[in-house]
């Protein structure tokens, strides 16, 4: 792992004292490899390495650490700091309902996550209205209705309406009738380069004025995660991120790329398919995964 590789590099160093430039650069080469293997986007790695370099060169090696461990500590601390040091929950709007809009690529876990969020809100005593605005995927609307029935949570019935923007608009009237405290809108998966669907997403946002736009991203995403997140953020403005499928063995570098380019907090992680598999995000576990 990275720690061992850095230790091997620094075995050659004679004394302690101060972290010197050539030694730091050699370590940074190893760190770059680790981050690439962890799926952190290349431009994000470049900036990160430059920042770590500035911090590390000339730094006094602490008496309790070896130079290798010191480098790992600098990298670890900086990555933890950048990922957001503490859990930040979705804010409840001062005037109900709190409107949450889900967005993301196809298959990232949006519909399932709507169910998980609904369960969490219900357990906190908030009644929800789930809005099925994915009119494209076969049985997507039914999928949300099944989750609603399973949880005992209301799901908006759009009847004959086929336009996602109209469905969302009408659902807000229904939320008023039902006195729903939270409205969660499930949208169709879309590629960030699909102009028509990105335009639809903008229109939905414009129409419902959500308090929270959640970007739902697969933790296993590769190099494109930075570009994808940036495009979604530029198009509709993300307020928070949910990283799904963290119950696998993906290193999860996408978490860092997404956080870095959007600046928005990772709120939750999905840890399985069941509706109770949603956990508040804490950076420490993912930092050790990313660094391998």
């Amino acid at each position, binding site marked *: 792992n990275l720690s061992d590789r850095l230790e091997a590099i620094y075995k050659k160093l004679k004394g302690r004292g101060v972290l010197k430039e050539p030694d730091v650069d050699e370590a940074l080469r190893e760190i770059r490899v680790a981050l*690439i293997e962890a799926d952190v986007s*290349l431009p994000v790695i470049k900036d990160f390495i430059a920042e770590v370099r500035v911090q590390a060169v000339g730094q006094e090696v602490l008496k309790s650490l070896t130079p290798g461990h010191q480098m790992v500590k600098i990298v670890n601390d900086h990555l933890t700091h950048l990922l957001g040091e503490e859990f930040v929950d979705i804010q409840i709007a001062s005037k109900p309902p709190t409107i949450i809009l889900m967005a993301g690529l196809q298959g*990232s876990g949006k519909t399932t996550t709507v*169910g998980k969020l609904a369960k969490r809100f219900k357990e906190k005593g908030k009644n929800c209205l789930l809005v099925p605005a994915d009119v494209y995927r076969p049985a997507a609307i039914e999928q949300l209705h099944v989750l609603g029935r399973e949880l005992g949570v209301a799901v908006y019935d759009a009847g004959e309406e086929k336009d996602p923007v109209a469905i969302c608009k009408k659902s807000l009237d229904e939320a008023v009738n039902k006195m729903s405290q939270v409205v969660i809108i499930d949208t169709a998966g879309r590629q960030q380069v699909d102009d028509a669907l990105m335009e639809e997403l903008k229109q939905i946002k414009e129409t419902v004025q959500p308090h929270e736009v959640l970007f739902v991203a*697969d933790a296993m995403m*590769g190099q*494109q995660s930075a570009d994808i997140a940036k495009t979604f953020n530029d198009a509709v403005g993300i307020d928070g991120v949910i990283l799904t499928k963290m119950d696998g063995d993906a290193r999860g570098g996408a978490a860092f790329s997404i956080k870095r380019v959007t600046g928005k907090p990772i709120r939750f992680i999905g840890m399985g*398919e069941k509706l109770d598999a949603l956990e508040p995000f804490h950076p420490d576990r993912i930092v050790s995964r990313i660094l391998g």
Partner: protein
Amino acid sequence: VHGRAKVGPELLEELEETLLIADVGMQTTSFILEDLKREVSQNRIRENKEVLEQLKQRMVHVLSQNQKPLSFSEHQPFVILVVGVNGSGKTTTIGKLARHWKQQGKKVLLAAGDTFRAAAIDQLQVWAERSNIPCISQKSGADLSAVAYDAVQAGMAREMDLVIIDTAGRLQTNTNLMEELKKVKRVIGKVLPGAPHETLLVLDATIGQNSISQARLFNEALEVDGLVMTKLDGTAKGGVLFNITGDLKLPVRFVGVGEKPEDLQEFIPENFVEALIP
């Protein structure tokens, strides 16, 4: 990149970045570039244009060596078991494949083997209905092996050409769910010896190096016969295929390039490489 200019170290750095950004991965990128780097340093390639051509040829070669088309003629029905992680595009790919083969005059039968996820059975049934294809299903919560058994039996009795079995998505590290797939293979093999004739692993192009773990572990558990890579209509290039096909010697049967029924293409190494290194 720069045509007839004399090759410099910048070109190789640029190519390394292009490959890494395409999810080719660290080790495989080094492997692909190493011969090229040596030839450049020994002055045996002098122009950028030549470097690019050599590189593309090498990449096409890696992808081509395991390519061979699916052939159904020796088996009736030819049974395909479709597997992969959650959300990779299995159900959609089955819908596209079924319609494609039906249009070629084949008799296709589908099996709704995802008895776990909300509305998974409904989802496959919609695809089946749209192409007027029979779909075997049981109620939600039924055993995958029971559905698969029914489907293969029905495929044999009705003299179908193809039986395609959908399964629930699962992460390759979930031992119990991988055991479930091993069991269904055994059950299918008892009904029809030699079946499933194709275990098809569906990979999502947007996923990074974890696709390698997916391919390895699904292969270890089930002996995968072929791959499908979906979502190549996005910006992800699917570079993990160099490592996976090279290492596991697997053919890529099809690629998914969108959500509509017609968004299915044959995998052509030259086109794939051209999209990666324009």
